[in-house]
């Protein structure tokens, strides 16, 4: 079995989505057309990530991810918008205080007018929701002309609601009237509220005319159709009260046969016909009502309205039979209600609702879609239609989500703790090897060798000692020349050896010249190598310092992580019993709300049963009087 979405609830949810979505929009002053269409130009990818979760309807993930990204300082380009979004999301979870502080802080900070106006709007809304009407009016009065168009209608509605709250119906009507005059296509809500405001302010004719027009307007969606039905039912019953049954029938006929308002409309249509002394016609909607869910008060009333119509038609026997059937049915219903109350108190209602309405996350944009399998579950449709019950159950469901969230994190933290232990063990195992490796490298010895080489390079350059850079061939040549010259020396001054001496001198000169020519290049190359050595040495020193620092830091870092894990674990452990206790309390409250409604249904049944018994007694009286009259009549 499916229930319809509770209209005010749906309206609230839709309004919040719009309001929060607006918090995400208008981020950048310079935007492309495409960006306008999309509403926001993402300048920090992590802000886009938050929007992705938000647009997916994962509001809990959106707000927690946003707060984590704010902590990391990676949504700086959208700082104010991010705060607006956070405030809106927290507000949607009912965290009025935090949300109010965020919006107030934005205003105090002197943000851009568009952000400021939205912040005032949200503050007004929070204050209205909490019943601080005067402060809400003060906040709404401070909204400038930079409020996004999407929020303008909500602002007008909020302002009208504030005026209605202090019974200034005329002002509310004037406000809404002015708003409607400027707007090409005002929402059903605004028109409905204006109609109500006009009637309450004494302008019954105008208000009724507006509701009448609304009652005939084609509707695009379920919310509009529901409002249209509501307007027609309200007009119909007002006409009944004013003894205008023809009008009542006309407007009640517009109500859809299957809708939240249809039972009331059918009942009213019947009474309008009865008023027009057309009991036969009254029977048509009332008989239809008898086929419907008996938990609705209109259906219950139809059970005694039908015999009333039979009595009016003079069918007293059928009337009596129907009254007696109704009494028996009321008694059965009362007994079934007792069973339902017992089942609710045994926890079956919430267990069934949770089982049949799973949801991934905590959120306001959620409603009961499937009724639980319970004996006589039909009674509960009225319970679920209540805003108060829906809100209370949503809180209960949120608490269940929080309990699961905490349990999941507790598991994760356990894993992270183990992971950290493994890291510490691995670190402890690797540390000696790393230390040994580091110790094996004698950086100071290397430095000394480098310094000696640098000094040699400098000396060679100063002394132009080209032979210092001689390569292997040149060194071999130098050795050979030295041995030749030594041999020639040993042979004395023999003139026959003069050519050899000359050749040796030339060869030595050529070699010296060659090395001298190569000296600048070799000197440059040596210096270049020195620079490479310096860079490598610096790298070695850096790495050595990093290892030394890591040896100091890593244990501290790991200790800090361990301490954070312990602290967070403690916070989880502190929250788990709080959530469990609140869940129990909330379960009790939800159950009592449901039970209270069923008790009301029982009381209604008792009243109807009394009325039926009274009618039965009247019928018997009538029969007795008739019999006496018959008896008293002279016999023919």
């Amino acid at each position, binding site marked *: 079995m499916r229930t319809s979405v509770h209209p005010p609830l749906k309206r609230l949810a839709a309004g919040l989505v719009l309001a929060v979505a607006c918090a995400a929009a208008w981020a950048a002053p310079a935007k492309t057309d495409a960006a306008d269409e999309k509403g926001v130009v993402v300048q920090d990818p992590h802000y886009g990530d938050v929007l992705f979760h938000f647009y*997916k309807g994962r509001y*809990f993930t959106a707000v927690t991810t946003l707060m984590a990204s704010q902590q990391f300082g990676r949504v700086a380009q959208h700082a104010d918008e991010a705060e607006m979004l956070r405030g809106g999301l927290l507000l949607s979870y009912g965290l009025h205080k935090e949300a109010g502080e965020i919006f107030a802080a934005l205003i105090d900070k002197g943000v851009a007018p568009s952000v400021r106006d939205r912040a005032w709007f949200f503050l007004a809304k929070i204050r209205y929701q*909490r019943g601080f009407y005067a402060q809400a009016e003060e906040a709404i009065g401070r909204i400038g002309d930079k409020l996004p168009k999407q929020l303008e209608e909500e602002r007008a509605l909020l302002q009208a609601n504030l005026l209605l709250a202090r019974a200034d119906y005329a002002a509310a009507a004037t406000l809404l009237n002015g708003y409607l005059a400027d707007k090409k296509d005002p929402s059903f809500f605004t028109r409905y509220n204006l109609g109500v405001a006009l009637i309450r302010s004494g302008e019954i004719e105008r208000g009724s005319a507006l509701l009448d027009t609304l009652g005939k307007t084609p509707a695009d969606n379920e919310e509009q159709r529901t409002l249209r039905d509501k307007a027609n039912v309200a007009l119909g019953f007002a006409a009944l009260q004013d003894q205008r049954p023809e009008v009542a029938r006309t407007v009640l006929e517009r109500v859809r046969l299957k809708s939240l308002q249809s039972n009331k409309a059918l009942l009213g249509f019947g009474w309008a016909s009865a008023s027009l002394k057309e009991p036969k016609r009254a029977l048509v909607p009332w008989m239809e009502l008898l086929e419907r869910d008996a938990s609705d008060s*209109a259906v219950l009333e139809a059970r005694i309205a039908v015999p009333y119509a039979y009595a009016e038609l003079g069918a007293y026997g059928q009337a009596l039979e129907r009254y007696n059937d109704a009494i028996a049915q009321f008694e059965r219903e009362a007994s079934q209600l007792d069973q339902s109350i017992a089942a609710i108190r045994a926890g079956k209602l919430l267990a069934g609702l949770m089982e049949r309405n799973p949801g991934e996350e905590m959120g306001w944009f959620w409603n009961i879609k499937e009724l639980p399998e319970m004996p006589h579950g039909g009674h509960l449709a009225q319970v679920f239609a209540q805003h108060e019950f829906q809100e209370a159950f949503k809180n209960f469901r949120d608490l269940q989500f929080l309990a699961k969230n905490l349990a999941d994190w507790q598991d994760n933290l356990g894993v992270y703790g183990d992971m950290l232990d493994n890291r510490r063990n691995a670190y402890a195992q690797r540390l000696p090897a790393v230390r040994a490796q580091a110790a094996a490298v004698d950086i100071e010895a290397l430095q000394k060798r480098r310094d000696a080489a640098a000094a040699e390079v400098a000396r060679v350059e100063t002394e132009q000692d080209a032979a210092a850079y001689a390569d292997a061939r040149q060194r071999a040549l130098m050795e050979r020349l030295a041995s030749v010259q030594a041999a020639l020396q040993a042979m004395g001054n023999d003139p026959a050896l003069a050519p050899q001496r000359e050749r040796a001198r030339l060869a030595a000169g050529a070699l010296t010249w060659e090395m001298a020519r190569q000296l600048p290049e070799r000197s440059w190359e040596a210096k270049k190598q020195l620079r490479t050595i310096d860079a490598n040495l610096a790298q070695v020193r850096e790495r050595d310092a990093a290892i030394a620092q890591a040896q100091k830091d890593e244990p501290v870092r790991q200790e800090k992580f361990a301490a954070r894990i312990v602290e967070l674990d403690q916070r989880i452990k502190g929250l788990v019993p709080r959530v469990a206790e609140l869940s129990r309390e909330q379960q009790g409250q939800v159950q009592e709300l449901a039970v209270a409604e069923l008790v009301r249904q029982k009381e209604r049944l008792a009243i109807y049963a009394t009325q039926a018994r009274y009618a039965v007694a009247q019928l018997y009286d009538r029969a007795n009087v008739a019999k006496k009259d018959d008896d008293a009549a002279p016999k023919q």
Partner: protein
Amino acid sequence: MIKPLIQALVIAVAALQVAQAQAPAAAPAAPAPAANVTAAAPATAPTLDGRIQDVKGDVIKLNRDLLVLEEELLFPASTQVALFVSMDVGKLFSLESVQIKLDDKVVSNYLYTPLEVAALHRGGVQRIHVGNLKAGTHELVAFFTGQGPHERDYKRGATIKFDKGTDPKYIELQIKDSTGKLQPEFDVKVWQ
């Protein structure tokens, strides 16, 4: 006889209820001073609803701290690389899935739901992968699968080589419409 019974219903229905976007949560309490915008509402007794809101607030803050710890522990800034997917207009391409390889290793195979595609269309940016990479040069290859113009199956790739230093690296894979070519385009943006 029965008519009085209708009265209750008539009054209940005809007492026109204002359709409100939000019913006040509670009856008005003593008004709070409105000297300045930061003035908070007066302290109220810790009702069940109030305590539930408190616990929600505490769990939300705890989740923030846990997410921060998780990221710092698992993906330290010095090695972190985060990959994002975004869609600019996207009228010429209906996204179905993305496969991403980092250094020839598949790190993500993601199949999109219509809701996720809509979230991208509205300006959301999906963080599709977070991982760790050593400092140095790396290669990213992404394959986008879906339907292109005229509802034809479409698969395109985008490749980029990037250097990973000691700061976190954020890389965005962008799906764009090239109105000139009437074809979708796939770009890679490396955030600094």
